[in-house]
């Protein structure tokens, strides 16, 4: 029963590729934003915080549509990128990665921010008195101590990205081999006569991936605590 067909493999591998790229590209932005929100007070901070969380509460179809308007071929940014750099998002797997990265961003940033907030600022001050410039303090003290939280955020973001559906299908449609991820493949299969068995297999694969990611995130969080206590 559990024979995964080539078409299903294509969807699984595409999902993995989309989620990996989305997570890796989002991570540096996530760390920068987490640090900004955890360590600085500035005008418009709550607004920025709200914007970051927007994809979590906005209907995914709205996010997808907004992506289409801005990053589509005729969109303000999409048109520019296509004409100058030749980067096209609309109806491509790269667009799926963009949609997934955006939708998973709030989940990716949150553990990063919490782990940076949990670091005793006094340690950063101690580093400063030892001659470390602010950027050195960040790379030698803040980031290493926040690393488990950073990894936890990446794992959670990855899990969310792999399951993303609404924004992706709105933005890049459901093209087998190009933009058909596990979620959109399941969606197609349950509308197809005799698609139940294949849909069931993909459902099991998604559950395994999601559970694995959550367990990994939990493990990283526990490592973070141990690290902060210097054991």
């Amino acid at each position, binding site marked *: 029963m559990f024979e995964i067909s080539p078409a299903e493999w294509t969807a699984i591998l595409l999902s993995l590729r989309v989620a990996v790229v989305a997570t890796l590209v989002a991570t540096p932005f996530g760390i920068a934003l987490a640090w900004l929100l955890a360590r600085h007070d500035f005008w418009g901070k709550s607004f920025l915080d709200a914007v970051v969380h927007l994809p979590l509460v906005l209907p995914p179809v709205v996010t997808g549509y907004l992506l289409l308007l801005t990053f589509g071929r005729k969109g303000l940014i999409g048109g520019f990128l296509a004409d100058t750099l030749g980067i096209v998002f609309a109806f491509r797997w790269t667009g799926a990665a963009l949609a997934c990265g955006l939708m998973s961003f709030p989940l990716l940033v949150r553990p990063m921010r919490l782990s940076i907030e949990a670091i005793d600022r006094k340690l950063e*001050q101690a*580093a400063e*008195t*030892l*001659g*470390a*410039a*602010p950027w050195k303090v960040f790379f030698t003290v803040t980031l*290493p101590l926040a690393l488990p939280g950073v990894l936890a955020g990446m794992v959670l973001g990855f899990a969310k990205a792999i399951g993303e559906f609404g924004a992706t299908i709105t933005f890049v449609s459901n093209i087998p081999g190009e933009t058909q991820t596990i979620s959109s493949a399941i969606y197609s299969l349950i509308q197809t006569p005799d698609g139940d068995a294949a849909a069931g297999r993909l459902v099991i694969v998604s559950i395994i991936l999601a559970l694995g990611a959550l367990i990994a995130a939990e493990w990283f969080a526990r490592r973070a605590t141990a690290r902060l206590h210097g*054991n």
Partner: protein
Amino acid sequence: MLRVDIEKQLGEFTLAATFSSEGRVIGLFGASGAGKSSLVNMIAGLLRPDRGTIVIDGETVDDTAAGIHVPAWRRRIGYVFQDARLFPHLNVAQNLDYGRRMNGLPSDPAQHKRIIDLLDIGALQGRRPGKLSGGERQRVALGRALLSKPRLLLLDEPLGALDEGRKLEILPYLVRLRDEANVPMVYVSHDVAELRQLATQIVMLKEGRVTSFGGVKVLT
């Protein structure tokens, strides 16, 4: 060596301190809440005075009128905190080497060995801070500060978090430091006995003001 003339408003509390010293160990004495830690944080550059000047070893590190504020990381000071503040993700050897790396100093095995012997921390090198006793942690913190080759060492109640037994364990090391390390120090304490043993000059602080200044005799 050290010249301080500053004012700082901290909520309801006003700190206004003026003194100048060439002493080897300046004892900063006062009850808790007298403003000792804030004053030391200002010398370290972690806190900015509202008005005034701070001069370390001839270099003006703060001058509000001239808009000078040298950040902590460029002051070449060492700071030993009451709570050690060792980096929990680094072992003792890496903690000790941190200041040298950050300042881009060449390695100096002779100096390294001298300080490690002076503080008796050679056997701890591979351990993580979480596996050290309070006294050991404080000795490593002293070593870490000294190995960054500071021109002034600030010690903010370095024995404050230790019980009597541990205090007696560390005090001889501090005396040795004073006599052998050749780094001027500012030693903050509310303990008269400690200061009598260590300080060569006393700045007495009361409710944010310097009330007396002079030799160790002012403690009596």
